[in-house]
């Protein structure tokens, strides 16, 4: 049963990933990406890692996809079709990706993965929480704090960057008394 579900999820993930990178309608590409992310959340459910599956659904399905959709709607017309990529570029990119995939698959198939005797049950949220806040050997308190500082910095940075300055029609920076202030500061 789990085997069948895994193959169905794998088919969904690969099909929609291909559709997402080849679709010429940008809003549809975003929705295909959403299906890929939901398929990956299904994989996490299959290995009983419910916490990350929930995070995947909320952060990706709920946050990042909405960000993408807003960016698309702010920038493009909904019906806009992307420019066709040149066939030569497609062929070169396809050949390079296929070559990289072949090398990776060869490396994977020849690598002897060690057999484990430990049995796997599931990853509990409580264990994750203790590991994240542990000061002992193998604890993750430092990366946890670094990530929180990073998220604050990114939030402030995103607000500052996105505010920006609107340009006038001739594409030169609009100077709303900015030039005079510059001289005063210097």
């Amino acid at each position: 049963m789990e085997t069948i579900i895994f193959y169905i999820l794998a088919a969904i993930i690969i099909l929609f990933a291909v559709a997402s990178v080849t679709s010429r309608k940008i809003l549809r590409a975003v929705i295909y990406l959403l299906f890929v992310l939901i398929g990956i959340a299904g994989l996490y459910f299959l290995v009983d890692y419910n916490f990350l599956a929930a995070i995947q659904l909320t952060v990706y399905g709920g946050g990042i996809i909405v960000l993408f959709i807003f960016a698309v709607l702010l920038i493009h017309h909904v019906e806009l079709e992307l420019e066709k990529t040149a066939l030569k570029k497609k062929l070169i990119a396809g050949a390079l990706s296929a070559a990289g995939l072949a090398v990776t698959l060869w490396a994977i198939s020849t690598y002897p993965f060690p057999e484990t005797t430990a049995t796997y049950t599931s990853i509990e949220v409580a264990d994750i929480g203790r590991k994240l806040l542990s000061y002992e050997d193998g604890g993750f308190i430092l990366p946890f704090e670094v990530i929180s500082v990073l998220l604050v910095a990114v939030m402030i940075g995103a607000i500052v960057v996105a505010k920006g300055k609107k340009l006038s029609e001739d594409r030169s920076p609009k100077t709303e008394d900015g030039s005079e202030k510059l001289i005063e500061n210097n």
Partner: protein
Amino acid sequence: MIAGISIYEILTLTSILFFIGIYGFFTRENLITVLMSVELILNASAVNFVLINTYLYPDLLQGAVFSIFIVALAAAETALAIAIIINLYKLIYSVEVKDTETMKY
């Protein structure tokens, strides 16, 4: 661990997903779609972290914790990149890769 599925099949799936992302990164000419390809790549690596952890080291948690960090980093990266893209659109009225010649504020 998924019953009946070996680690080779899972690594094959994530490798294919990773290289689909690479293909999109090469061929797409719009910054938003390039960013979507980066999401695919990041997701493939996050799945690898979790599944290698559950298959090879079921008694440890390192891969599980690192996948959470990857999700946080991906969210941060996307938010900042979309802010930059919207700002760029205000500056040059385009988000095509070929028009992006300046990143000066």
